[in-house]
C-alpha cells in the first residue's frame, strides 16, 4: 500500500523513540478528561513521539451478554453503550432485527424515530463540544454545552419518558406517540438553540485564544481518513462526503430534504465547527419532520393485531404501546442481518446471527468511537504535549461506546 505523508512522519519520529531522551507520561484512567481511558504518551522534550491508547476500562462484555438475553431485552442493554445517544445506537439493532423478522415499519413510526434520532444527535454533539471546551480549560463552553443539552433532554423526556435511556425504537415501531403541544415546544427549543449557536461562535469558535489552540492542529488528510477507516464528523471534516443517513435507507431521511455538511481542512477546529453545522442541519430536519409527519399507527399491523382489543383501545387513548405477548420470545428465522445507522459520533454497524431460538447466536457491534480511536494514536504524533487535549477533545471519543 502506498504510504501517505502521515505514516512517514510517524516512522521518522518513531526512530527517536529508542534514544534515552524519550520519556513516558501516563495519562489516566483518573484524569480531568472524560475518564475511563489511559494514554501512554512518549515525549521527546515537548514533542509527542508516540501515543498508545490503553482501552478496556469500560469493557462490560455487552456482545456476550446479548447472547444470554432474549432479543427484545438486548435493546436496553445496547443503549448503555452510548447513553448520551441512546436512540441512535439501538436503532441499528432494531433495524437489523426487523430485517430478520421481515417487518415493515409504519410511516409515522419512521418519522418519530427520525425525530428522536436528531434530538439525540444534537444532545450528543453538545456533550462533545462541552467536553472539548473543558479539555482546553474553557469552562464557559463546558457549562453552556451541558446546560443547553438539558433542553434537548427535556424534549426527549416528554416524548419518551426518560432523560437518557429512552428504549424508544422497538421492532415494528416506536413505544409512544407525540405528546400534545410537542411541536410548539420543539420549535421554541430550535429558536433558542439558533440564538445560542451565535453566542457559541462569539465566545468559543471566533475567540483568538481558542482558534490558536485548535487551528492547524491534528490535521487529518483526506486519503488518511479513508485509509484508516474513520467515520462520522471526523471523516466529513476531512472532505469526504459519507454519511450512513445517505447510504442506508432508514428512518424518514429519504423523504426529507437535507444536506450533509462537509469541510475540507481536516484540523481540530474544522472537526468542532462541523458539529455546529450538524446541529443546524439536525434542527432543520426536526422542523421538517414535525411538518411532514403523517397520521397513522405507530406499531406494525402484524403486531397490532396480537394486542387484545381492550388494551388496543387504551393504547389509542394514551398513545403508548402495550407490548404484545409475542415480544417475550421473538423467534426470528435462522439467518443473518446487518444494519448501519449514523450516530452523533459516526456510523454504527450491527451484525446479528440467528439460529431460530429466542436468543441471538451472535451480535457484533462496530461502534464509531472504536473506529475513531486510531486517530488518537496517529494525530498527536509530532505535536506539542499541550496540543494533546485539544486533539482528544476534537475527536469526540466516548470510551464506553468503544469498549462496549
Amino acid at each position: 500500500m502506498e504510504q501517505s505523508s502521515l505514516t512517514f512522519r510517524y516512522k521518522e519520529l518513531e526512530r527517536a523513540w529508542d534514544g534515552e531522551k524519550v520519556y513516558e507520561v501516563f495519562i489516566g484512567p483518573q484524569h480531568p478528561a472524560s475518564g475511563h481511558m489511559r494514554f501512554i504518551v512518549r515525549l521527546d522534550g515537548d514533542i509527542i513521539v508516540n501515543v498508545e491508547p490503553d482501552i478496556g476500562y469500560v469493557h462490560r462484555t455487552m456482545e456476550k451478554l446479548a447472547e444470554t438475553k432474549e432479543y427484545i431485552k438486548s435493546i436496553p442493554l445496547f443503549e448503555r453503550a452510548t447513553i448520551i445517544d441512546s436512540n441512535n445506537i439501538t436503532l441499528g439493532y432494531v433495524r437489523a432485527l426487523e430485517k430478520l423478522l421481515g417487518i415493515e415499519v409504519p410511516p409515522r413510526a419512521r418519522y418519530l424515530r427520525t425525530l428522536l434520532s436528531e434530538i439525540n444527535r444534537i444532545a450528543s454533539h453538545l456533550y462533545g463540544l462541552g467536553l472539548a471546551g473543558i479539555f482546553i480549560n474553557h469552562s464557559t463552553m463546558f457549562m453552556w454545552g451541558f446546560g443547553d443539552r438539558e433542553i434537548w433532554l427535556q424534549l426527549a423526556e416528554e416524548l419518551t419518558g426518560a432523560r437518557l435511556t429512552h428504549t424508544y425504537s422497538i421492532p415494528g415501531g416506536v413505544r409512544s406517540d407525540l405528546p400534545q403541544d410537542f411541536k410548539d415546544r420543539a420549535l421554541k427549543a430550535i429558536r433558542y438553540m439558533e440564538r445560542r449557536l451565535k453566542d457559541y461562535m462569539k465566545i468559543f469558535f471566533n475567540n483568538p485564544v481558542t482558534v490558536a489552540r485548535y487551528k492547524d492542529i491534528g490535521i487529518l488528510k483526506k486519503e488518511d481518513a479513508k485509509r484508516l477507516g474513520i467515520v462520522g464528523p471526523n471523516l466529513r471534516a476531512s472532505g469526504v462526503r459519507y454519511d450512513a443517513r445517505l447510504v442506508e435507507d432508514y428512518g424518514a431521511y429519504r423523504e426529507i430534504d437535507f444536506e450533509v455538511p462537509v469541510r475540507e481542512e481536516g484540523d481540530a477546529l474544522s472537526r468542532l465547527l462541523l458539529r455546529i453545522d450538524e446541529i443546524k442541519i439536525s434542527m432543520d430536519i426536526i422542523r421538517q419532520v414535525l411538518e411532514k409527519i403523517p397520521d397513522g399507527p405507530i406499531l406494525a399491523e402484524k403486531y397490532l393485531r396480537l394486542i387484545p382489543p381492550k388494551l388496543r383501545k387504551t393504547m389509542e387513548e394514551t398513545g403508548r404501546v402495550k407490548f404484545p405477548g409475542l415480544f417475550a420470545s421473538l423467534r426470528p428465522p435462522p439467518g443473518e442481518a446487518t444494519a448501519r445507522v449514523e450516530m452523533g459520533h459516526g456510523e454504527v454497524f450491527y451484525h446479528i446471527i440467528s439460529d431460530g431460538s429466542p436468543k441471538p447466536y451472535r451480535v457484533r457491534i462496530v461502534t464509531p468511537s472504536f473506529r475513531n480511536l486510531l486517530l488518537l494514536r496517529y494525530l498527536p504524533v509530532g505535536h506539542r504535549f499541550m496540543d494533546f487535549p485539544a486533539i482528544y477533545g476534537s475527536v469526540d471519543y466516548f470510551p464506553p461506546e468503544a469498549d462496549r
Partner: protein
Amino acid sequence: MVCPLMGIVLVGNLEESARKASRWFLEKPPIRNLRDWAISFSLWPVHFTTSCCGAEFAAASCPRFDAERFGFLPFLSPRQTNLLLIEGTLTRKMAEAAKIVYQQMPEPKFVILMGVCALDGGIFHNSYNIVRPHELFPVDVFIPGCPPRPEAVARSIIMLQRKVRNSKYIWGDGHEPKGED
C-alpha cells in the same frame, strides 16, 4: 505521667503522643461540631468516571441542577478530594485504579455508589468482567437507578452532609479498601 485530658496516657514516643492529643482535641464537642460543619460543605469528589452514569453525574454538576451550591465541586487530584463517587459499572481493570485512587485520598473520605450497576451489577449482573464495589469500599450512600436522575445525586449529597453533621462517621477507622481483587 497522666495528663489532665480525659485520662489519655501521654508517655513514650512524642509523635504518637502528639497525634493522640490532637485526636482528643478534634473529638471535643465544640471543635468537633465545627469540623463536621466544615467537612459537610466541602465534599469534593475526585474526577473519576467509571462508566456511563458519568453522563448524569456531569449533568448534576452543570447549570440546570447545579450541585456546586452544596459545596460539591469535582476536582482533579485525589490528594485534594475527600469523596469517591463510583459512577456505574466497575470493571475489573477499573477497580484496580479505583482502589489506588481511594488509597491516595486523605482522611476523612467517603464513598457514594451511583447506579444500580454499582450496587449489585444491574443489567450487567452476569458479566464476567465486573466487580461489586461494596466489596471493595466502605460505602456511605447508595443511589439506585439506571441511570439515577441528577436530582438523586443532589439528594445523596444532602444525605451525606446530614450524616457528617451528625458525626455518624468514624475517623480513620475501617476506611481501608477490602478484598484482593
